[in-house]
């Protein structure tokens, strides 16, 4: 069975999917692609090298007359792969695309945190009502398959608490401040130069990105109904290099840690003093998560939290698991 994908978004993640589809025999064809300004549709599968070439040369993937909305509503596809930029406050236009695809009878995979953080319960029940899958593994911790693991593989467990390093940009900045004695500003500028931080890093360094991931975890793993305002958020932008030195004196360092203790309704993201040999002290832009469960005990996950291929890995994992479910396999 060949699965037909419609991709919305041709940024790093979208390109990662297209590259993987070219390199590997995944049994996927891409029948439609939209970027922010254009779109293209071919029911038999788009020519992917031509598509990448066109995007590189013109900055557009197709025809300005074809919008993302047109693709969602009219193109032939089995799975909508929604990878447009996150709008943390409205979740739009991604949420509308997802809703429309589910109403049309298509599965949806997204890497977009906005719709999941804001509308998970609505979208999940719409998918369930229509006997469809709605997957979003890439929204939390990039390549680490944390959501499927917590929701399905640890299904019989009570998950008592979760602690995690969920933002690679912040972890990179804190690693460099600790290791090289850089000031916050120097480390941030370095992260920008290396492409780890956006030109406007507010979303990362103020903790908003990581806090949204806590919202997604709380709502999808524990079926809570919280929003960003329910998370107690402190970023790293006010940290001083002296604070890192003070931590160093006690063989510790400072990391931005997300914390969920569902039994106590604790949802927190803030810099914490943490022993240097603690498993959550990972280097550079890595992510790390520890969960405490009643049956499985403590589990540690470490991996790349961002990047084109890494995030594509999570999206492709979702796509193939939908295929397996519907092929009656495992």
């Amino acid at each position, binding site marked *: 069975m060949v699965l037909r994908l419609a991709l919305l978004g041709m940024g790093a993640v979208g390109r990662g999917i297209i590259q993987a589809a070219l390199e590997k025999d995944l049994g996927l064809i891409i029948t439609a692609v939209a970027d922010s300004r254009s779109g293209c549709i071919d029911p038999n599968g788009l020519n992917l090298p031509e598509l990448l070439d066109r995007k590189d040369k013109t900055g557009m993937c197709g025809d300005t007359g074809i919008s993302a909305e047109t693709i969602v509503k009219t193109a032939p596809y089995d799975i909508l792969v929604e990878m447009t930029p996150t709008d943390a406050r409205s979740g739009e236009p991604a949420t509308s695309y997802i809703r429309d695809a589910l109403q049309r009878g298509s599965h949806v995979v997204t890497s977009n945190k906005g719709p999941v953080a804001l509308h998970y319960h609505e979208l999940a029940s719409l998918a369930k009502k229509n006997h469809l899958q709605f997957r979003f593994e890439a929204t939390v911790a990039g390549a680490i398959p944390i959501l499927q693991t917590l929701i399905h593989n640890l299904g019989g467990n009570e998950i008592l608490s979760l602690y995690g390093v969920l933002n690679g940009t912040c972890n990179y900045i804190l690693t460099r401040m600790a290791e090289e004695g850089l000031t916050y500003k120097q480390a941030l500028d370095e992260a920008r130069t290396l492409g780890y931080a956006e030109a406007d890093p507010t979303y990362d360094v103020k903790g908003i990105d990581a806090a949204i991931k806590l919202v997604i975890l709380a709502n999808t793993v524990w079926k809570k109904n919280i929003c960003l305002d329910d998370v107690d958020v402190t970023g790293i932008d006010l940290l*001083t290099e002296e604070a890192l030195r003070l931590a160093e004196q006690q063989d510790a360092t400072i990391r931005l840690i997300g914390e969920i203790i569902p039994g106590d309704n604790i949802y927190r993201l803030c810099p914490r003093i943490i022993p240097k040999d603690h498993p959550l002290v990972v280097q550079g832009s890595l992510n790390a998560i520890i969960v405490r469960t009643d049956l499985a005990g403590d589990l540690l996950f470490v991996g790349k939290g961002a990047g084109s291929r890494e995030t594509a890995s999570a999206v492709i994992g979702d796509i193939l698991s939908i295929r397996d479910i519907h092929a009656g396999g495992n």
Partner: protein
Amino acid sequence: MQVSMKLELRDSPGQLVAALMPISDMGGNIKTVIHEHEHASGQGDLSVEVVIEIPPELLDGLISRLRERGINVLKLGEERMSYSQSVILIGHLVHTDLGDTIDRIDQTGFAEVTYMSLAMPAINERTSAQFVIKSLTREHMQQALLILRQVARQKEFLLIEPLEF
């Protein structure tokens, strides 16, 4: 605060209860009771060690009440702030009354700031400070951290707490 007391009482029925009653009546929390039959000081006397948690201002009253009941307080142990945590505060710590910040913890009676290390890079720049806080119990530490969070919010400090896992 946490206090250990060695009590001497007559080895007859009801005496131990008579000794423990005033403690709980006054709101003290009895952590442990250790019998010392083998070290009985004389005929029919019994020595008992108790570890209690009690607000410091009530301790003298408790000792008087025990003595009124014929119970001899042989030894009074010092309070034991056995639980220790380190936090870092960043902000204009000195100009927002550092003494008051410390007092807010110290005046609880169950926790105190026992060590402080300050880094002041330049005038008008924010100070970073490490506080070591000691408390009687883990629960008291949680309460002390809650107080510190309120202070931090009020005085616009960044409070960095330890991760306990």
